[in-house]
């Protein structure tokens, strides 16, 4: 009987020790989560790091690392966020969780504009037979990758694979149609100086380009006609040709500027008005 009582006493002590350690970690997890939910991301990172430090059995490894990563992401520390998402991935064997983490990493790569890395990651996911059932999600994020790569036409094609009337497809089509072709702007300016500027809506610059090239060409031709070949060559090279070249570069620059404005408008619109998943 005495031995039995001793055993019970040991059981009592062990239970309490175990529960106490467990409850401390759980309490710490709850406290850290509260910091995260209250948007106190710096404190959330500290508290989740504390949890990880004392969690010798790594029971909270997945969640704590994930929350740390999300907090870093909120603070714009994308490299740290990727590091902790990767650590989080190591803390789970659940395929859905792994996929979600990989997509989070894709999203961060989008935000930090490492687009080639994003495409690599998405291609890896696409080729992985474990995620065969997740093709739609991969296609969806590939669409976003094209948006961030400023290729709205290809983005539209990706979203069309999901749904021909996908909201993002329509937005991408609108931006794509409104964009200016750099090649077209340059070719127009090659054919008629100033025409590329007219195409991008910069009329004054177009008129100036045309006038300068016309003036220097006229003077060069006049020199050639007067048998002043060297004079003609110098005017043609240092003035007419320079202005002609500048006119082509100018047209390309304007097309770039207008396209940047449209891209920014598109991204701004998506940020404020699109309700679906975003990076």
């Amino acid at each position, binding site marked *: 009987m005495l031995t039995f009582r001793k055993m019970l006493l040991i059981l009592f002590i062990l239970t309490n020790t175990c*529960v106490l350690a467990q409850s401390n970690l759980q309490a710490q997890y709850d406290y850290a989560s509260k910091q995260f939910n209250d948007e106190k991301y710096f404190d959330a990172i500290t508290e989740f790091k504390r949890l990880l430090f004392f969690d010798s059995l790594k029971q909270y490894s997945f969640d704590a690392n994930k929350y740390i990563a999300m907090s870093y992401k909120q603070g714009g520390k994308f490299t740290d966020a990727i590091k902790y998402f990767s650590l989080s991935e190591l803390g789970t064997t659940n395929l859905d969780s792994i996929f979600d983490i990989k997509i989070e990493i894709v999203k961060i790569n989008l935000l930090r504009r490492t687009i080639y890395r994003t495409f690599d990651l998405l291609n890896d996911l696409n080729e992985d037979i474990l995620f065969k059932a997740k093709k739609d999600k991969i296609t969806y994020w590939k669409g976003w990758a094209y948006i961030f790569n400023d290729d709205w036409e290809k983005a539209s094609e990706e979203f069309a694979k999901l749904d021909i009337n996908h909201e993002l497809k329509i937005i991408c089509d609108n931006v794509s149609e409104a964009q200016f072709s750099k090649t077209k702007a340059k070719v127009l300016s090659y054919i008629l100086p100033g025409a590329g500027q007219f195409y991008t809506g910069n009329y004054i610059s177009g008129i100036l380009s045309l006038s300068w090239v016309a003036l220097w060409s006229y003077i060069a031709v006049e020199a050639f006609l007067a048998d002043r070949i060297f004079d003609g060559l110098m005017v043609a090279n240092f003035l007419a040709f320079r202005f002609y070249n500048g006119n082509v570069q100018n047209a390309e620059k304007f097309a770039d500027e207008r396209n940047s404005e449209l891209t920014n408008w598109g991204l701004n619109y998506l940020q404020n008005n699109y309700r679906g998943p975003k990076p």
Partner: protein
Amino acid sequence: MIKLILISLSAASFTYSQNINSGVNVLHQKENIIKFADYLFCEKDYLRSANEYLRIDEGLRDEKINFKIALSFSTIGDYSTAKNIFRQINESSPYYGSSRLEIMKIFFLEERYHELGEYFRTGRNLNLSTENTSGEKLYSLSFLKDQQTIPAFENFVKAFDADEKNEVAALYQLKMNPPNKNPLIASVLSAIIPGAGKIYTGDIGDGIFTFLTTGVFTFLAYDNFKAEHNFRGWLFSGLAVMFYGGNIYGSFASAQIHNARIKYEFNLQLDSFIKLKNYFIPQYDFCK
């Protein structure tokens, strides 16, 4: 027996609820705070590490913890807080000498070389041989950063070890005799012979191009006026004047750019030498 089990379970559940709802979590007790702060310090998460150490009551913090707090603040660039804490470290503490070096390093990083010198001189007579030697090295190199009078070569290099002397001597010579170019001379040269100023500053290709273009346009202007093609004469004159003026201004700018590059490269060389030497501060063994 049943009573005992019930007591055990209720005690366990009580403990659990206590931990969730109150601040008695053992993870936030002093020893665990120190362990966690040490971990953060070694992980180079200095701001969090300092914050954790600061959670411990001031009266319960030892000199080592205070030193690590100051070191954390110094590393993240909060020099003012770091200096305040370093200054509070007691003269009898084993960290006193290191604190002095760290304060000198901060003065150096803040480019307050005069204060660095004064601080070094006040501690010269203290019984801190290692720290004084390291301090003197940093103090000597601060002369190369400052515009004040630089000591004579023998005095300047005497604090340095044999393996450091060559590099320090090279830096000293570069500071004393920088291969600068005079912008005024460059401009005058270009005014006399277009492009000569640029050749003087090392932009040889640019100099030759300027000479040729200015010469050709001047000749064309002369030739067109001579042939009574006045419009082209004025046109080429304008171009010649433009190139000639640009060449004088360009030579002046080229000399300035050359000098700025010399200064930048010197500072880069000096900074990387000092960083490589860790500001002559011995490595700490906090994370072994």
